[in-house]
Each structure stands twice: as structure tokens, then as C-alpha cells.
């Protein structure tokens, strides 16, 4: 697909296995975030198809794609600053009867859902260690804390596939540990599939089942973490010795 004359993602073909942790790496401008935008529906592809659980999703609106279980986080961790931390999490609740105005007349159903949603949310907050901020405006959280919130919120949404956009960038190592713990726990419990964009190569190699390398909008390597280290194309892309193709 093209942005004002630049082909951001050009002929990227890849698949992601259920239950795996797949990382997408590559130099800046390789098209990684664009790839996420295409999968999550934020951008529409000029050509090509995207299949999820057998269904074509590339023409769907973002909220429909999220409905199907693909939940993403955002680079820089977008939190809703003027909602409380707890409200941010509860936003992730799916099939909330209170979202439908018809249920305005059914306070019982709304309350029942809110109570159990709140419990789940507080549980998650405890797991990531920021439950003391539950009723504070999310705007006061630090960058690292926002990342945690972004992740927790994604988890609230019953994801099948989690798209994590640089979840560890700018997070201090202790928190990274914590994040990884939570992710591992959830992965086994819910059979989640992860697709991550990440720059920290060490983390990527440690946690990924598979690594996809992108450069200049193409997939240039795809395989087990070890194989990537030795891949000449990958080395070239990172070192920039490869000439730009026209």
C-alpha cells in the first residue's frame, strides 16, 4: 500500500501460527507499523488479502476486526488521559450491555456486567502492579506505566491475536520482566497468539518462536530466531549496505 507516493508495504506475504509468539523486526521505515495498521484495519490495503481464522478481514472496519479477536496496542501507548485508569481498562470489556442504549432501561443487567468487569480489571491492575492508580486520571501515569495499561486493556478485550506495537520500548527492565511474566501466564492460559513489533533484539530472540524481518516494505527473512542471525539479507538491511531497489 502507498502513502503519498511511497510504497510502505510492498508485497509482504507472511502467516502467523496460532498460539505462537511471532516478532516483526526491521530497520526504521521498514513498514512494520503499516503492517499492523493493515491487519487491524486502520489502513486499507491497495491490493492483496488478509485472512484471519479463514475469514477475509482486509475490508472490514477496525472495530469489526477487533470484534473478531484481533486486539492491538499502539506505539507510545495511547491511554485515554481524561478517563481513570480503571475506566480505561473497563473500556476493553466486550459485549457490555451498557454500551447499548436499549439497556438504559435495564439497570440490573448493566450493573451485573460492570461488577464482574470491574473485578477483572482490578485483577489485571494488581497483576501489573498499578492498582493504586485505579481511580486516578490515566494522564498522570508515566510512559512505562502507560505501556502496562495499554497491554492490560488489550487483554481485557478477550483477544485471540494480540498485536503489540513496541511493547517494551522505553520500559525499565524490571517492568519488562513483569510484562513477560504476565504475557507467558496468559499465553498458556488462553492460548493467545502474539505478533509483536520490537526493536530490542535480545528480548526478541528470547521470547519469539519465529521472527519475521522486514525492510523497505518487504519481508526479507522469516524463520526461527537463530536462523535470522546468520541471514545475510538481514545483516545487510540493518547495516544498510544493501542498495535501495527501485
Amino acid at each position: 500500500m502507498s502513502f503519498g507516493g511511497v510504497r510502505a508495504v510492498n508485497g509482504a506475504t507472511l502467516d502467523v501460527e496460532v498460539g505462537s509468539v511471532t516478532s516483526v523486526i526491521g530497520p526504521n521505515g521498514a513498514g512494520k507499523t503499516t503492517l499492523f495498521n493493515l491487519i487491524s484495519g486502520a489502513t486499507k490495503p491497495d491490493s492483496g488479502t488478509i485472512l484471519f481464522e479463514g475469514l477475509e478481514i482486509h475490508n472490514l472496519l477496525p472495530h469489526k476486526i477487533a470484534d473478531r479477536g484481533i486486539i492491538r496496542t499502539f506505539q507510545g501507548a495511547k491511554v485515554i488521559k481524561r478517563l481513570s485508569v480503571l475506566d480505561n481498562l473497563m473500556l476493553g470489556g466486550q459485549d457490555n450491555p451498557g454500551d447499548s442504549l436499549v439497556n438504559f432501561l435495564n439497570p440490573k443487567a448493566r450493573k451485573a456486567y460492570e461488577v464482574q468487569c470491574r473485578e477483572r480489571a482490578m485483577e489485571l491492575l494488581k497483576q501489573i502492579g498499578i492498582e493504586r492508580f485505579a481511580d486516578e486520571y490515566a494522564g498522570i501515569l508515566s510512559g512505562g506505566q502507560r505501556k502496562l495499561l495499554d497491554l492490560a486493556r488489550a487483554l481485557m478485550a478477550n483477544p485471540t491475536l494480540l498485536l503489540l506495537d513496541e511493547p517494551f520500548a522505553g520500559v525499565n527492565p524490571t517492568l519488562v520482566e513483569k510484562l513477560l511474566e504476565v504475557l507467558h501466564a496468559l499465553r498458556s492460559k488462553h492460548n493467545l497468539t502474539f505478533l509483536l513489533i520490537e526493536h530490542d533484539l535480545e528480548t526478541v530472540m528470547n521470547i519469539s518462536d519465529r521472527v519475521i524481518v522486514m525492510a523497505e516494505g518487504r519481508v526479507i527473512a522469516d524463520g526461527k530466531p537463530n536462523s535470522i542471525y546468520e541471514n545475510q539479507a538481514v545483516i545487510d538491511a540493518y547495516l544498510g549496505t544493501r542498495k535501495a531497489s527501485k
Partner: protein
Amino acid sequence: MAEFVQLLFNGLVEGSIFGIAALGISLVYSVLKLVNFAAGDFLTLGAFTTFFFATNSHLPFIVAVLLSMLLGVAISLILEFIIWRKLRKTGAGMLALFLVATGVAFVLRQSIALIFGSNSRKFDIDQIKTFEFLGAQIAQAQLAVLCCASVAITVIALFIKKSTIGKNMRAYSDNPSLASVSGINVDRVIIATWTISGAFGALAGIFQGTVQGQFTNGMGLDLLLSILAAVVLGTIGDAYGALIGGFVLGIVMELSTWDALLGGIPSTYKPVVAFAVLVIVLLFKPEGIFGVRVRKI
């Protein structure tokens, strides 16, 4: 055929007026991110002060025009220093800008009414002399406006494209923080923006008064919607787009009254046509003719 030429010509003239006013609004938006709802009243002010200087004080018309433009610039700059500057400092959001612009519009409009009264005015110029061209009646006044407007448009287009300040304006509107860090004199850019907007607003009002004949203090407001439509049509913030939007709307609005088009729309509904066109275009190009499509919800 004659009617078509007539309407086309009228549309061109009206379009040039829209274009000039729309340009000012678009420039202010691109540099200051402000939709200047008070712009319509600058048109009215320009027309009324020209009337006052030319007819009451008996100054030569061209002097009156220049004085009015100067006044428009002066008031724009005063507003910048006592209001807009302060508002930007407090980090005002979209709503604050809209409401303050509306407040300014109210104050301006009522001031004009208080000072000049509510009677309709008319410039002391020959409205009657016409030429014939392909069966259409071309008023001398219209021709004069079209020529002057074209000159003004050409001058400003060149200015924005070639002059240093013009380039700085474009750089600042693209990326304000980068521009100020790279040494561009932001103050000068802002002052230049308001100067152009104030001068062109007055000019558009004077042109409209010339073409329209009688005008009242509702004149600017009557036009404001069509002008805003031109701004949005050409993509807000795009100066050239504003000019094109102005011409397109002017011509479409006039032609919509053509008999041959299923009897034509009654001319009182022209602004409705402007908005119908705008909404239809926005349905396909939500950012305006020149905008980049951003898929959101």
C-alpha cells in the same frame, strides 16, 4: 446560450470574490489552526468603511479602498495581540478557538451596526454600464472586480510561492515546532498571515459591495457560509485549494439557476446549492478536494 455565458461570467466574478475571502481564512487556518468565524464581518467592515471614506468623506475611491484594507489589517493585528496570542499561550483547544472567534464575530458585527447603522449602503460607482459579449450582459463593475481580483490572486499566489515569508509560512504550517527550531521568525509569519487575511477580507467585501450594489451589515455573514464551503471544499489550510474551491462554488452556484437544468434552482437557494456540493464532495473526499484520505471510523 446567452444565459449560460451570463451565468458563467457571474459565477467567475462571484467565485473570484469567494476565492479571495477563502484564501484569507485558509491561510489563517494553516498557520494558526483557527477557523476565523469573524472573517465574514471583515468583509462587511471593508465595504462599510470604503463607503464611509469614499462617499461620506469624498476621498477618491481607490484611496478609500486602500484605507479600508489598512483598517482591516490593523484590526486583525490588534485582535492577534490582545486575544489570539494569549489564547495560544493557554493552549486553547478547538472549542475555545471556535467560541472566541464567534465572540469576536459578534462584537465586530454589532460594532459595525452601532457605528454605521442598519441602513443599506451603495457605492458611488457606475453600476449600470454594461458590455455585450456572446449575448450576455457584462457589467463594467463586474469586469473591474474580476480584473482586480485576478491581479490580487496572482500577486498573492506568487508571494506565497516565491517570497521568503511565503516559504516560511508554508514551512511553519507543515511543522510548527520544526520551523521555529530551524530559525524561522514565527512572529513575522503570524503577522504576515493576519495582514494578508485582513487585507483580503476587506478587499473581498469591497468587491462584493461593488458587484452587489446595495449592501447591508448582514452582507459578510450572508456570504460567510459559502466562503467557508469553499475553504472546506478546497481542503482547509490549502491556500490554492481555497482559490479553486471559491471559483468552483461560484460557478456551480450560478449555473445551478440555469433554466436549461430542469428549470433551474431559484436563486435564493444558491447557498443551499453550495452546501449540497460540499457535502457530496466530502462524502467521497472527506478531507476536501486536495486532502489525503485518512480512513478513521
